């Protein structure tokens, strides 16, 4: 059944359905809180109050800023290094064979192990934290970009060669645009993975950021604050997706009609 069918059958647009589904979630939450009557399940209204309290009087903005900058640093690092190595492995068969085993190893190391080892080896520092996050992401970027490089259309590269456009133009105008869909896939899944791991890194070894605050609230059994912080961070990541990644993707794929 298509969206149009749904529209005609009950007269509700997709947008309304989404709003309704969201309201339903709030109602279920509210009812559960009412039934439970427990300190560990505050109702939405209480969470909203705590949220605004942290926003105005607390350090929510500061913590969000700290965590977001770690997300960005780790994301950029993982994307740049992963893309470069991925392209090289896609282009050079011998390098691919040489590094493939390491890649499989890295892909299968649990995030927690990387984080612990980074902290043990490099100390409880900002560099260790960001490195730990990047290391969890970049094998994935490599695999995606290697796949993309292997799928590059050599017919188009031949055009660049025949018309002698030079190595710089060949790379940026003929080669890299072909990798764009793969970079986008890596970026999307990268953001989603990284911001979750950043919280764990903060919880284990930083003294600020959302992850650190969550551990404090956990020790205080302050569930309303935990939910408020989570809500704030989810909203920020949604904004990142809607305001940055989405429009960028639409612009770059505008020719696909």
């Amino acid at each position, binding site marked *: 059944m298509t969206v149009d069918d749904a529209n005609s059958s009950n007269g509700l647009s997709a947008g309304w359905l989404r709003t309704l589904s969201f309201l339903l979630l709030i109602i279920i939450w509210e009812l559960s809180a009412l039934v439970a009557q427990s300190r560990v399940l505050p109702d939405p209204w209480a969470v909203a109050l705590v949220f605004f309290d942290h926003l105005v009087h607390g350090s929510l903005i500061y913590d969000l800023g700290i965590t977001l900058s770690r997300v960005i640093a780790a994301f950029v690092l993982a994307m740049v290094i992963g893309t470069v190595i991925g392209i090289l492995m896609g282009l050079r068969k011998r390098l691919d064979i040489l590094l493939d085993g390491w890649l499989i190893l890295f892909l299968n190391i649990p995030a927690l192990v990387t984080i612990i080892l980074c902290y043990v080896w490099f100390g409880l520092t900002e560099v260790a934290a960001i490195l730990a996050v990047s290391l969890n992401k970049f094998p994935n970027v490599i695999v995606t970009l290697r796949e993309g490089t292997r799928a590059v259309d050599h017919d188009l590269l031949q*055009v660049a060669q025949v018309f002698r456009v030079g190595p710089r133009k060949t790379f940026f105008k003929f080669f890299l645009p072909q990798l764009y869909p793969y970079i986008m896939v890596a970026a999307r899944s990268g953001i989603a993975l990284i911001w979750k791991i950043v919280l764990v890194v903060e919880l284990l070894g930083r003294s600020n950021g959302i992850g650190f605050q969550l551990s404090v609230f956990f020790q205080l059994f302050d569930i309303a604050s935990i939910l408020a912080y989570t809500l704030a961070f989810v909203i920020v990541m949604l904004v990142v997706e809607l305001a940055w990644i989405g429009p960028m993707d639409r612009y770059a794929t505008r020719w*696909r009609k």
Partner: protein
Amino acid sequence: MSTSSLRIEIDEKAYPMSAGGDKRIAIKDLRLTVSDSEFLCIVGPSGCGKTTLLNIIAGIDNDVSGAVTTSNHEGIESMRVSYMFQTPRLLPWMTVRENVRVVLDEETANMGKAEELLHQMELSDSLDEFPNRLSGGMQRRVALARAFATQPQLLLLDEPFVSLDLPVGNLLRQLLLELWQARPTTVIFVTHDLREAIYLADRIVFLSRGPSKVILEKTVTIPRPRKIEDAATDHFRRELLSQHDSLLHGIASSSLDTLDNNMATS
């Protein structure tokens, strides 16, 4: 533009067969000279190594024993080469205008060379369209504009109009001739269609089945402007085929009917 003829001497071009062992020889002892600003058509059966030959001339394929040199004893690198492939090979993420500009250096691009040629190809209204939105014929016109925009000294064309229907293909053949007459350049045009070759060429070179070499050269004596379907071209074709019947058997499409079918369906 320097005046120089082109000498193509290929001793052997071979492809390694899979699983080691034997190799398949695509071209053997092929000797060919092309004069400056000549329109040369190379006719041969499918799979005889025509594309391979063009790739060697273009310098894409260097795995060959032999040489392509100009009369001043310089390599092909000294010439500005353009290539129109069997498919248009446009960059889908670039607009029509960008697709032509991308092969130009900045100076030439800023002189409006791309727009000028696209205008001649009657694509002025589609400058900012993406290639996927264009018909096959229009995509070919963009590729043709791109090929001429660099002001090539040597233009290579590899059956560029085969997958088009007859009227669209004929329009493009006409456009190609107009461009070539306005901006003379040496042209090597590969085809399996004898009638197309007679319409376009100053001289036709016939290649044998693989391993291919030159089996016949024929200057087209029909004065320009020619028509693609008139008595003169038809007469020339029939005479050619009857004179060299055994030599050209199965090399050049011989019957008018099969030719029409080929062009309509392929």
